[in-house]
């Protein structure tokens, strides 16, 4: 099981690097999907099958489809890929690389002293196929101690819903002059 963890971790890192370096937007998105699937496998191996399934259904299966949908609509051709390649010039890498390196150093600094603890507390048991968190426990946790977070998230979603409804609202539809509101549906 530990080999699966490191293998999918490596796949996730490699795929994410490819996302950043691809010139074609659709290819970059495809690598991002691979990266998300790899992360889902990591969750599964760590003993969180429910989160792994949701990662695939929501991120890989729904959010990314919307991304691909929009990119397809934009119909970026060869010209866009050429422009993209120009943007990827070596000079462009300096700033982001320094910032990312700082973040990486911080992450390692935080993680290194705790590695033993994590192994003992969760990692060891979950990796050897022992305890896992099943969907029932996730539900109980969400609607128990984390209820406030769930409610806040639902509020955010409601705001998004109202916004989408407002943007998609046809003002002409109310007055009946919009072609889509005609009973025969014929657009004149």
């Amino acid at each position, binding site marked *: 099981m530990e080999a699966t963890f490191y293998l999918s971790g490596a796949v996730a890192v490699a795929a994410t690097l490819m996302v950043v370096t691809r010139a074609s937007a659709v290819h970059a998105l495809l690598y991002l999907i691979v990266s998300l699937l790899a992360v889902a496998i990591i969750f599964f191996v760590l003993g969180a*099958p429910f989160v792994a399934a949701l990662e695939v259904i929501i991120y890989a299966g729904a959010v990314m*489809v919307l991304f*691909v*949908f929009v990119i397809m609509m934009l119909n970026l051709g060869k010209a866009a890929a050429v422009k993209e390649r120009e943007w990827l010039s070596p000079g462009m890498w300096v700033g982001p690389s320094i910032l990312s390196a700082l973040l990486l150093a911080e992450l390692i600094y935080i993680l290194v002293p705790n590695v033993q603890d994590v192994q003992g507390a969760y990692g060891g048991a979950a990796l050897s196929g022992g305890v896992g968190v099943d*969907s029932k426990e996730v539900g109980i946790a969400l609607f128990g101690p984390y209820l406030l977070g769930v409610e806040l998230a639902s509020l955010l979603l409601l705001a998004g819903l109202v916004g989408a409804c407002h943007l998609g609202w046809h003002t002409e539809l109310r007055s009946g002059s919009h072609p889509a509101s005609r009973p025969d549906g014929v657009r004149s």
Partner: protein
Amino acid sequence: MNEWTPIWANLILILAVVFAFSAMLSWIERRLLGLWQDRYGPNRVGPFGVLQIVADSIKLLAKEDWIPPFADRAVFVLAPAIVAVTTLLAFSVVPIAPGIGVVDLNIGLLFFLAMSSLGVYSIVLGGWASNSKYSLLGGLRAAAQMLSYEVFMGLALMGVVMLAGSFNLRDIVAAQENLWFCVPQILGLATFAVAGIAEARRLPFDLPESENELVAGFHTEYSSMKFGLFFIGEYVGITLISAMIVTLFFGGWLGPLLPPLVWFLLKTFIVVACFVLLRAALPRPRYDQLMAYGWKVMLPVTLVNLLITGAVVLSMA
């Protein structure tokens, strides 16, 4: 761990049966359509035309495997494989009978939903990589249609999960010992069946393909076995949806007298035949009608179903 010994035999047998049945399905479908439309259908090759699929496969394999020069080569080749892989993977969680099945996953139902949501990429990417107007239109339609219908596909199944108290498909079948879920979850069955047809891109929901307006939609540029993979992927998809409907709503392998395996196959075949009958009976809707139907009718119905089921489960507990 002696449960694991027959797993390879199980796996190979299920794979072979699923493939063989899906291939035969094209012949079964054409014969059934013929019957309902008062004509014969393919009856020349072999007894009753059963060998038609063999002739078709030889024809497909012998055709030129052409990749258009304007296509995005890598994605073009990848796309047809995705649909075949995801639908076959989803079959691994279907509990066919006690002791027959590939894996017994605790999140089996979620795994099925995940695989069916990944299947969209096949169609969308196939349409995009072909780099032709008709294919792109088909791909765009597929993305919008399958995304919209997936939303309530998952919600329609949550009623079943509430009643069974598990995402494990074997537990769900076992929970139907006394009463099949098609009775208390009739709304769930109706919405899931509609979503299932849309997911399998079958008439009346075959707008990504719609040969009358888009040539062949997303697979216009495909030929030979790459087209064959899309073709067989669609039939595996129908078989999968039928098997899932049987598992979730019609008690899976449960039934009197006959052995469990026979019951499962019999029920699945009846549901498949209903899908074919739908194709013979219904016309294709307009695209905006399809989207409006999904969001304005099916989604509210599934939410009402969830509300009622939740209330009943709470009051029973």
